[in-house]
């Protein structure tokens, strides 16, 4: 306990003063949390979380902290990266003299700049050893580089996060149903599971029936739960599993899932509700994170807001039309600066994520009210449409569609601006039935979508402008062995023969 107190002080020094994390303190905290859980059964989430989740800051203190760390990061960027050296030279700005108000006047770093030349953002004095790319669902993949110290730190922080929120313990079996190319998230998450002692495997994005078979498979591993108890998955792929599982007669009794972490895409309330029909009463987490701004993450609260830890990054919500901070209740794009000590190698100042959110109106009353918050993600800016009545975001359409049983999961749809509103197209089960059209129109109107054209189709190939979904990043497999007998990965030979990826 005395060493734990020292480790906590060392951890607090890093979080509070921006000094690099000491691996010994992170490792000791992990051991201490595990020992605490063994002794007491579980950690008090509120209490443990507040001790390790960073300090609660008022706005003035947050501004001071952000200014100090932004300057540190800006000095490093100007001295050691080619992109920001040119930028500061062009603007004739001294990064160590920046005032808080100056930060908002620095041009945001566009995604395209990072995508085209990721090396221009890497500090010369660091040793990058881990390169990762985004899955490129919305465009060409973007590369980001990290040091081994950063990776070890991220894994340790992920471990502490999972342990202190009681999400995973050593008896869990964890299935990662994510793309094997999502190396940053997969490495950190699998590393954290290994630290905890949970059994983790990467199932990947395989044919849904295979994934369901893995989830339903009984195991007899000593000390582990009998079935997969935790799954990390993309929203659209979860939708596929739900649709496929219900179609094939799976019920909650077939699974042992307790928790599902859904991410990478917008997560609708409809999807969460329909997932419960297949998997039973599971906890669903839909936190926010992205490769480029890692490990700055948004945590969902009891009232559905996204909350951000002010010590790991600086968050701005910028109106995409004016380039100024979005006001209360207004939509804007998340502009993020990952701060030290969380980022050392790839420096990004005011990175424009293109992820749209809305500023919260009124005071917060939720369980995370002390942390800066926004609305849940609304979708990518380039997928949103601007019309006379304002914006229509992917979330508006998705929530309406996935809440309707007539729409198979994941909702496959597109929408675009037309005179007077938007046109929406979507795959539905029975497109010819007027009842289906009425139900979807009503739901869209309830979500404030000014539908002027609604095109219902029964096959995704008929969509004109479908939004990309991560579940389509499927991984193929070898063919079915001729002498394999009854089944392959839970598929009968007959079923398997009908699959393109087998």
């Amino acid at each position, binding site marked *: 306990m005395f*060493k734990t107190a020292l480790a906590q002080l060392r951890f607090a020094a890093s979080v509070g003063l921006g000094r690099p994390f000491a691996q010994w303190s992170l490792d000791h905290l992990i051991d201490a949390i595990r020992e605490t859980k063994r002794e007491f*059964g579980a950690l008090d989430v509120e209490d443990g979380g507040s001790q390790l989740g960073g300090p609660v800051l008022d706005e003035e203190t947050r501004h001071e902290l952000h200014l100090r760390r932004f300057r540190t990061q800006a000095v490093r960027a100007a001295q050691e990266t080619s992109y920001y050296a040119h930028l500061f030279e062009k603007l004739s700005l001294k990064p160590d003299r920046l005032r808080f108000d100056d930060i908002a006047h620095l041009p945001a770093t566009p995604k395209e700049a990072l995508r085209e030349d990721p090396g221009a953002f890497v500090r010369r004095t660091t040793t990058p050893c881990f390169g990762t790319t985004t899955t490129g669902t919305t465009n060409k993949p973007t590369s980001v580089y990290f040091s081994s110290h950063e990776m070890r730190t991220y894994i340790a922080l992920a471990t502490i996060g999972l342990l202190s929120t009681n999400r995973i313990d050593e008896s869990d079996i964890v299935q990662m149903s994510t793309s094997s190319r999502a190396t940053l998230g997969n490495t950190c998450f699998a590393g954290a599971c290994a630290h905890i002692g949970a059994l983790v495997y990467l199932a990947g994005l395989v044919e849904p029936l295979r994934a369901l078979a893995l989830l339903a498979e009984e195991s007899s591993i000593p000390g582990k739960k009998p079935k997969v108890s935790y799954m990390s998955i993309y929203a659209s792929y979860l939708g596929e599993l739900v649709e496929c599982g219900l179609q094939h007669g799976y019920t909650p009794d077939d699974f042992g899932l307790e928790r599902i972490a859904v991410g990478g895409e917008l997560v609708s309330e409809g999807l969460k509700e329909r997932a419960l029909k297949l998997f039973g009463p599971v906890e669903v987490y839909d936190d926010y994170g992205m490769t480029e701004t890692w490990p700055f993450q948004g945590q969902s609260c009891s009232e559905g807001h996204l909350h951000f830890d002010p010590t790991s990054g600086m968050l701005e919500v910028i109106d995409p039309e004016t380039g100024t901070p979005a006001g209360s209740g207004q939509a804007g794009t998340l502009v993020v600066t990952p701060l030290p000590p969380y980022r050392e190698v790839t420096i990004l100042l005011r990175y424009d994520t293109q992820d749209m959110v809305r500023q919260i109106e009124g005071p917060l009353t939720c369980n995370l009210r002390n942390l800066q918050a926004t609305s849940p993600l609304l979708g990518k800016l380039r997928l949103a449409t601007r019309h006379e009545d304002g914006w229509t975001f992917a979330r508006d359409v998705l929530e309406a569609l996935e809440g309707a049983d007539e729409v198979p999961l994941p909702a496959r749809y597109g929408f675009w601006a037309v005179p007077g509103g938007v046109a929406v197209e979507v795959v539905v089960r029975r497109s010819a039935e007027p009842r289906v059209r009425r139900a979807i129109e009503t739901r869209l109107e309830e979500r404030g979508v000014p539908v002027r054209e609604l095109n219902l189709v029964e096959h995704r190939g008929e969509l004109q402008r479908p939004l990309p979904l991560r579940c389509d990043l499927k991984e193929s497999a070898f063919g079915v062995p001729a002498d394999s007998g009854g089944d392959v990965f839970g598929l009968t030979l007959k079923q398997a023969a009908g699959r393109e990826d087998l």
Partner: protein
Amino acid sequence: MLMTSFYVVMAFTASAVLLGWVYFRNYQTARPSIGVLNLGDVAFMIGVIILLPYLYLALPLWLVAAIFAMAMLSILYFVAEPVLRIRWANWVVALSLIGADVGANLYFGATSATFFLVNNTVLVLAVVGVTSLWAQSGIKARDVAVLGGVLALYDLIATSLLPLMTDLITHLASIPFAPVVNWGVSHERFVIGIGDLLLATVFPLAMRKAFGRSAGIAAMAINLGAIAGTMAFLQLAKVEVGVPLMTGLGPLMVLQYAYWVRRRGQERTTWEYLRAEPLDHQRAASGRI
């Protein structure tokens, strides 16, 4: 014939052990949310126990008294916290006790019955709080037995072979918060150190957590019996030297631990203990009483 001081000191000793037992079962102290008291902490405690007497002998008395006052204030606040549950009331109680101890020392003198009464009460309350915090922080019976075993040897050296403990008690006897339960003057004086009291109180708690109610009650009876027997013998035999109580208590703790481990197997974690023996307020919440 036993003197009054024997009965008074034994009464305070028994109060510490019994109150500790009651407090442990009825109140939850604010323990650190992360971390468990383990063998590493016991090793750290042993180091501190060895170094502190020299530090207290080297520092000016007013500074030692100030250190004791600060420590007592925080301990008493934490003892009161789960009982009173009102911040200002905790402060009132803690500050009143601190004030009473200092006042009795200054006004009535360090050898007065009033000061002994107040100081003994403050020490007993502090022992109750600290031992509950240790036990509720997950300390294992094994680790307390190890501490007892090591202190048995240390006490023999520091009290019998060296003049360290006698010097220390004499040196600190005149200040407020003197770390001894004390009664009487001259040849009637009887003293038991706070260290002995802490071990005698925490061991039954750790044994109860680890092996159940019987093990805890047995530990209480054995500790109090051993202390009473030793003190009665000293008084009846008119021995007026410092006796290393832990040299007797320590091996008894080790033996008890060995017996219960053999009988019950591995000791329980706090989680298993509370599942088997919910606290009174937990039982009430779950409708079991």
